[in-house]
């Protein structure tokens, strides 16, 4: 089928990247220009990366507003900003939004944009499937949030939505239905993109780019894709059962009928623990690129970094029940999971030590990106340590469901994941947009964020140990909770200020860009292939597919050892960087079908909840679009010459065309 396309990404004999317009089915074949419509039909991995990034940032604001509401409610005892019911919805949607609609798609933005660039490819293996992933993700995200408007409120069962709280009896609004179906839609998106990116990584590396020469960011993103590939089906099963229980009266989570509420907990956390690595590994990858660059040293212990990443990827499957120490899983399970959890800290510790060793004796340059990266290491270490305290089951019995847990996971997720990805944003901004983010504003934003973050989540350790439980909508006076709660709320406002500064930075740096010298291909003296091509990256990425000779290929084109064994510069960037001027690169044609397929899915979702006829319409739309897609050639037929008949040796397009005729 042409859904599964072959990628025609070599230089063709033609001399134009554009394709003639041609009516095809209902849509006019899109052309790949620069207007807004072209964003709807784009299959360019860079644009899709940007779409992911921008949408993720939007949902960061949504989730952030929800966080601020939580903090305003808890700022003082007996808060009355939110009712108990709304409070439950707000913290649930906050968690769901931050995890599934902010940090995962932001990581997806990095995967899409940088995996092909770092392995020297012109696009991903399946460009249209890539577009499909994004549109499905966006449709799922919008679907999930419409439950505020049409579902009688958001889900109110916490982001892990334990049974039996998730049942109709305890959660009668449609919020949980939106949760169950919305997350399934998001899961399809991630599944499609993980298959796509795994194939890209394994199959599209430039000549010489062996696995052990791949940049660490790409490695960590690859491991993340494998985790997604295997973790998503597990939560999909859980959500599927939940959906059947709620909408079609199945008996999976009905204890009265003999069902086991722990089934949900197991399925959820078998997904859920790998999920935390899905969140953190991309940030680890970013940090592993930023720190060597600004230390002017190769990453210390590359092999250890890669293998500890792989080890985390494997061990992450054997620790899930540490979330269930108090669920009555029995002493043997508790002991076993307690031990395995302690062990998983080892590869993580290896990584931290390697980053420190990379900086050791390096020529450090503290740009904003570097500051974020170093802060990531520091904050993540704090979160990792409190994690080890949870692994001691007796201690965890005291900590679980208190604010100490909330402190822990924010140190790892926010302190590790979010700060890490912000390091990446500052680092690669000039590559993506062709101008720097303002360092001075960035500096302010960084310090305010760091202080605000610690002020928000540091005190939660104390509150938790004092016994303040999480997910309570308010607390009484006189337990000693007042001071630190107020501190946390002030901290969260500081984080908000920092985010506003960041947005201002985005606007201002774009406005200032014309008056400043452009960053050029390689502003930070980088090490990996994406710095060998112009900023912003031309549509076809590489004029010539690079030949790779070792790790840090781009660095070694610029530097070499001289006779005395000292590293000296052997070429300037201007001499060795690609110009981006190649013409006639044969690119995959844009398509509207991925968007059309994606539109059908939320219709199915609404239909399941409200009216099955609507589900039928959605299903028909999706199926029709899939077929139209399959029948649409990968490349515009007008770009073709005659094919099928005779010898094709001399015709590059020939091969590409057959891809489109597969089905």
């Amino acid at each position, binding site marked *: 089928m042409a859904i599964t396309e072959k990628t025609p990404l070599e*230089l063709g004999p033609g001399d134009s990247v554009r394709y003639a317009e041609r009516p095809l089915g209902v849509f006019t074949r899109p052309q790949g220009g620069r207007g807004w419509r072209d964003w709807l039909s784009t299959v360019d991995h860079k644009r899709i990366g940007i779409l992911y990034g921008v949408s993720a940032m939007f949902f960061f604001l949504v989730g952030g507003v929800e966080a601020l509401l939580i903090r305003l409610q808890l700022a003082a005892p007996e808060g009355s900003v939110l009712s108990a019911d709304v409070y439950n919805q707000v913290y649930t949607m906050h968690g769901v939004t931050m995890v599934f609609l902010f940090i995962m798609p932001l990581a997806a933005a990095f995967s899409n944009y940088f995996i092909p660039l770092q392995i020297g490819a012109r696009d991903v293996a399946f460009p249209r499937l890539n577009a499909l992933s994004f549109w499905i993700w966006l449709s799922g995200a919008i679907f999930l949030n419409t439950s505020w408007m049409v579902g009688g409120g958001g889900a109110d069962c916490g982001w892990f939505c334990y049974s039996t709280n998730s049942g109709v009896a305890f959660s009668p609004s449609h919020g949980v239905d939106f949760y169950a179906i919305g997350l399934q839609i998001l899961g399809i998106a991630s599944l499609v993109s*993980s298959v796509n990116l795994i194939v890209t990584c*394994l199959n599209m590396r430039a000549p010489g780019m062996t696995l052990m020469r791949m940049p660490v960011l790409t490695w960590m993103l690859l491991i993340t894709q494998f985790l997604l*590939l295997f973790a998503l*089906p597990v939560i999909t099963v859980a959500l599927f059962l939940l959906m059947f229980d709620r909408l079609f009266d199945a*008996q*999976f989570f009905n204890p009265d*009928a003999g069902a086991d509420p722990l089934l949900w907990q197991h399925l959820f956390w078998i997904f859920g623990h790998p999920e935390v690595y899905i969140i953190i590994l991309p940030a680890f990858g970013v940090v592993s690129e930023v720190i060597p660059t600004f230390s002017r040293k190769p990453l210390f212990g590359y092999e250890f970094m890669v293998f500890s990443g792989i080890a985390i990827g494997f061990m992450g499957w054997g620790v899930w029940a540490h979330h269930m120490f108090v669920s009555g899983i029995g002493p043997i399970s508790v002991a076993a999971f307690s031990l395995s959890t302690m062990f998983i800290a080892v590869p993580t510790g290896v990584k931290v030590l390697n980053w420190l060793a990379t900086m050791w004796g390096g020529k450090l340059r503290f740009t904003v990106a570097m500051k974020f990266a170093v802060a990531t290491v520091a904050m993540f270490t704090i979160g990792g340590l409190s994690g080890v305290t949870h692994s001691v089951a007796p201690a965890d019995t005291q900590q679980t469901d208190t604010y100490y847990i909330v402190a822990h996971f924010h140190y790892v997720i926010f302190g590790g994941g979010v700060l890490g990805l912000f390091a990446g944003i500052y680092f690669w901004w000039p590559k993506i947009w062709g101008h720097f983010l303002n360092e001075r504003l960035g500096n302010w934003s960084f310090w305010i964020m760091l202080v605000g973050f610690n002020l928000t989540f540091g005190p939660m350790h104390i509150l938790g140990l004092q016994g303040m439980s999480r997910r309570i909508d308010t607390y009484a006076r006189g337990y000693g909770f007042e001071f630190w709660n107020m501190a946390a709320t002030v901290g969260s406002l500081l984080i908000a200020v920092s985010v506003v500064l960041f947005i201002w930075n985005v606007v201002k740096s774009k406005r200032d860009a014309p008056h400043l010298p452009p960053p050029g291909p390689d502003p930070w003296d980088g090490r990996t292939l994406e710095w060998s091509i112009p900023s912003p990256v031309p549509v076809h990425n590489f004029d010539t597919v690079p030949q790779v000779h070792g790790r840090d290929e781009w660095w070694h084109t610029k530097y070499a050892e001289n006779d005395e064994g000292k590293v000296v510069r052997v070429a300037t960037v201007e001499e060795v960087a690609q110009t981006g001027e190649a013409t006639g690169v044969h690119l995959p044609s844009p398509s509207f079908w991925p968007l059309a397929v994606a539109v059908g899915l939320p219709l199915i979702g609404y239909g399941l909840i409200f009216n099955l006829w609507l589900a039928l319409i959605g299903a028909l739309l999706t199926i029709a679009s899939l077929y139209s897609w399959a029948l649409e050639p990968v490349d515009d037929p007008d770009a073709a010459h005659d094919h099928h008949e005779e010898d094709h040796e001399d015709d590059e397009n020939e091969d590409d065309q057959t891809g489109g005729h597969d089905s």
Partner: protein
Amino acid sequence: MSAEAVTADLGHAADEHGHDEHATTTGLSHTKLAMWVFLGSECLLFGGLISTYLLYKSRGNGRTLPTDVFDIPFTSVSSFVLLMSSLTMVLALSAVSRGEDEAGRTWLLATALLGGVFIGGQVYEFTSFVREGVAFTTNPASSAFFTLTGFHGVHVSLGIVMLMSLFVASVKGKLTQRNAETVEIVGLYWHFVDIVWIFIFTVIYLIPAD
């Protein structure tokens, strides 16, 4: 650095390995690799559902269990039919890759038909279970049973849709020796669904509830 020259080279390297494919790092085509990766994910999906059933198989809530109404001889026959469809799938692939389009079409159709018979059997099985008092909402065991086998049935049905699409493509002359790989990839999916059924049949039907 002549861009044209470099890629022309790449192009020829690709051509030596077979005309349809551009050189890939692993030598496997993107599509085939993607199917393998996807099937890896499917294993966990079925794994989750099978575990759910195993956990719940004896939880009848005082009502009839699926194990009480299984008709093993009947299901054995329909399982055999499904297994045979794997054979015809292999024959379809070998015919198409030898360029025998006519035979290829016949075997594709046969595979789809056998799959259809299996689905028919499942529909019959489901309705007779419901008549005997084991419906989707009867108890945790029945919910788990219908979800697992129904989910598998949906997979078989999707496979049938793919087979029929191949058949139509072949009729239109769009499925030839050159893209025999497409048949191979659909075949991978089809065999996978069969193997999963062998699992389900042994674990679900042959192991009694306690």
